[in-house]
């Protein structure tokens, strides 16, 4: 049996190697692959380097436009400190800012309670505030502490959350959907198509007519119904999307199976009385890896699109988690005041989809036997 299995592998390796070789000499395909890897790396590594958690709300910096300038701006500090102190019934008398530190003098009618510092620390602008000295029986105090400087490269959303951090986390969700839902569709589609093609006859008829009927269903509707039915579980969302997109894969795999079934190496395996199941898994399936990989690359953008569409409608991942579709939906709702909320997520989204589509096309060309 080992020998029989080995006869198939040089062909597979040869096909795959030659395809990779062709891809390596294709600058457009490589650029698409590079862009995709870069986006994935940024999305999965970026959040570790970002100073902003994706769900941290900065009340003081709502709908800040994208810029390299650090916040807070000097002129807003006094008002911010005044309102923070006012919560503890303390009045701000003077404020001086030097470097990253501030120094303020405040008075109150009662002796100043040190707990007022919590209000100061809770403001997004300040941290590590302390009472440097008190005078006047505690009614006048000097406070000092640090000014908390933060940057929002892509601005913030309507809740004051850093957009870049949200895009990166949303990218993780979108890319994870791309991988997991594609795998789901791959498993179902390959199993369905291979079994139908390999067994043939009535089973084949029945299985492929089922696929025909499923094709005729309004699929966007079905996936919406599935999502509404399964609740808002992210894992189930992935599965539901994958379970929708397997039909094309099943058709293609069936066609490949029919083609390979009549080849000499399959007859040779039969003559050596290799079990039927083993012929399928060892001789037929490995020979269509190229086709399946190419088709999976073209399925990934479809499932990412579907997830984003659902999230756009508010049916996908739920806050505080997010995805590119959800971010684009928010951006679409605030065109007037904050176009950056639309432009940045849309740019990431379009770049990813375009890279995936180009890569899929190039891989298809690379694997195409007619092109060799």
């Amino acid at each position, binding site marked *: 049996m080992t020998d029989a299995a080995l006869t198939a592998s040089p062909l597979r390796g040869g096909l795959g190697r030659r395809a990779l070789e062709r891809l390596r000499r294709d600058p457009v395909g490589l650029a698409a692959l590079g862009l995709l890897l870069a986006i994935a790396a940024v999305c999965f590594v970026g959040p570790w380097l970002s100073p902003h958690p994706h769900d941290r709300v900065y009340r003081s910096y709502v709908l800040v436009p994208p810029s390299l300038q650090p916040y807070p701006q000097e002129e807003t500090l006094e008002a911010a400190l005044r309102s923070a102190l006012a919560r503890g019934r303390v009045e701000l008398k003077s404020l001086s800012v030097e470097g990253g530190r501030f120094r303020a003098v405040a008075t109150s009618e009662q002796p100043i309670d040190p707990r007022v510092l919590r209000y100061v620390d809770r403001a997004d602008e300040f941290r590590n505030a302390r009472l440097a000295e008190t005078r006047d029986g505690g009614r006048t105090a000097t406070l000092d502490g640090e000014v908390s400087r933060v940057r929002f490269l892509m601005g913030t959303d309507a809740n004051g959350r850093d957009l870049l951090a949200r895009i990166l986390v949303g990218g993780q969700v979108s890319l994870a959907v791309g991988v997991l839902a594609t795998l789901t569709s791959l498993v179902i589609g390959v199993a369905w198509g291979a079994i139908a093609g390999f067994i043939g006859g009535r089973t084949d008829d029945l299985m492929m007519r089922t696929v025909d009927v499923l094709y005729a269903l*309004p699929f966007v*509707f*079905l996936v919406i*119904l599935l999502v*509404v*039915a399964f609740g808002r579980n992210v894992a189930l969302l992935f599965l539901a999307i994958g379970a929708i997109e397997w039909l094309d894969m099943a058709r293609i795999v069936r066609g490949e199976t029919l083609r390979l079934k009549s080849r000499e190496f399959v007859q040779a395996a039969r003559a050596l009385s290799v079990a039927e199941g083993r012929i399928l898994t060892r001789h037929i399936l490995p020979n269509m890896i190229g086709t399946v990989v190419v088709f999976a690359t073209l399925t990934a953008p479809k499932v990412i699109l579907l997830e984003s569409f659902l999230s*756009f409608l508010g049916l996908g991942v739920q806050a505080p988690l997010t995805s590119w579709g959800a971010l*684009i939906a928010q951006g679409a709702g605030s*065109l007037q005041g904050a176009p950056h909320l639309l432009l940045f997520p*849309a740019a990431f989204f379009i770049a990813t989809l375009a890279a995936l589509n180009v890569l899929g096309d190039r891989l298809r060309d690379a694997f195409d036997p007619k092109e060799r």
Partner: protein
Amino acid sequence: MTAFLVRRLLWAIPTLFAVVTLSFVLMRFTPGGPFNADQALAPAVLENLKRAYRLDQPLIVQYRDYLAQLLRGDLGPSYSYRDFTVTELFARALPYSLQIGGAALLLSLAVGVSLGALAAKRRGSALDAVVTTLAGLGVTVPSFVIAPLLSLVFAVWLGWLPAAGWGEGALAYKILPVVALALPQIAAFARLTRAATIEALKADHIRTARAYGLPEWRVTAQALRAAGGPVVSYLGPAAAGLLTGSVVVETIFGIPGVGRYFVLGALNRDYALVMGTVVLVAVFIVAFNVLVDLAYAALDPRIRHD
């Protein structure tokens, strides 16, 4: 030909049946019900409501009733839009979707096919490269990205067109939604036409036509006719999708069409509205698939003899 048509129409019956059954089952097994409003209803009121809509019957009875009702052409009363039947809702909203979708369909067909044919005729030229790249981008970017971007550029930044609304049917209000719907389809038609025309221009009868000295535009017309197959078969589902409204475009541009009803229905557990939308779309798909088969036969005489 008639036999062919009858066979196609007969195939539509099990398909529609499967669609209705699957949607019915899925919808009924969805947690929640049509009367789970924000404020809880008194149990007695809920009982009465359920009895009024016959939701207290066993599921199989409800299913049988729904099928019987459907055969009479009645889609039933809506649960969330009280005082309206689903048919009335569609009668009000469908004209909006048909107008926008129909205009988008004609636009995308005209522009997409011309661009694709031009690119194929001048294969390898700069025009071809531009069309191919833009078409590749166009099929990649979905309407829920294109629509807000168009709105941002033409309504907010340039101020040329209104951002949303129907505006008593004024032309200016229709431009952005039509373009947003049409752009991805233009890209798809251009791609299909280009590939099919390149293939068709290689065929023997085109060489014969050239050898006879036919003018180039007639040769191209012949090639386009042969290239019509893939375009027409894509046209069927695309037309059904465009004419039954897009939830995204209708939401973004505030158009009161039928596209929104499915999502609203599913969220409100408005069983009748969801089922009605499913039936509406399925009927459109089946109808356009039959039309596509007829067009196929018209374009390619070989099919007529099957």
